[in-house]
């Protein structure tokens, strides 16, 4: 029986073979989005756990790598959402504005990084993949399960939002 069919039936040896084959790719996509090696490892583990749980829905005629990549991106975006909520909660509890709201005492790069973290996670993901990592739009579209025109639109919206934030901070003229 084919490796993918064995995996879809719940064969753990087949799953381990697929894990060994694709963990590097899944990890790199996670790292591109979450930017921290330890968190990227957690995302990789969570992604493979979800992959195994969703094995019955996997179509063995389709490429496993693209499917795994999409799940990993969803897990990473979930992580970005949690991170953003946590940061918002901390700033409310400490009764002080988010880091990017005050330019004083921060270097420009730090302010830009904070402003990126405050973007809505779906825009954050596209901006990081397209601008920082220079991943082609078609590849991002496949990984996120959206169209190429949606990738372009999100990139455009992310840049405009960041521009407004940076103008408020006095970073942009």
């Amino acid at each position: 029986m084919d490796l993918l069919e064995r995996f879809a039936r719940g064969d753990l040896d087949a799953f381990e073979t697929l894990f060994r084959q694709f963990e590097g790719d899944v990890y790199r996509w996670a790292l591109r989005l979450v930017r921290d090696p330890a968190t990227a490892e957690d995302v990789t583990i969570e992604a493979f756990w979800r992959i195994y749980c969703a094995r019955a829905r996997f179509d063995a005629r389709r490429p496993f790598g693209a499917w795994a990549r999409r799940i990993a991106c969803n897990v990473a975006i979930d992580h970005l959402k949690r991170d953003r909520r946590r940061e918002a909660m901390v700033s409310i509890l400490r009764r002080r504005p988010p880091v990017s709201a005050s330019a004083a005492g921060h270097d420009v790069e730090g302010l830009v990084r904070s402003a990126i973290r405050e973007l809505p996670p779906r825009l954050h993901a596209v901006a990081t993949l397209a601008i920082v990592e220079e991943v082609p739009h078609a590849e991002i579209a496949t990984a996120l399960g959206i169209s190429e025109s949606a990738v372009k639109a999100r990139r455009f919206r992310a840049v405009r939002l960041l521009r407004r934030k940076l103008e408020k901070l006095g970073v942009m003229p």
Partner: protein
Amino acid sequence: MTDEQDRAVEELIRAARSATGLGGPERDLWPRVRNCLDRPRGVRPSAIDWALVAIGLGWCLWSPETFAAVLYHF
């Protein structure tokens, strides 16, 4: 806003964050994946479940007699 200004923002983003490179994880992650598979995970309540609980609690606080009615039906 012009394309040039957008490009300037993109340059700032690139300067603030560098690409992550092509490395893989530093340790073997398979044992941790196996642990996750072996450990039974409880059902996670969704946001809708929490919203329903909040509505129920709010309702009981707003009209305490509802709470007695709910208890009666249980």
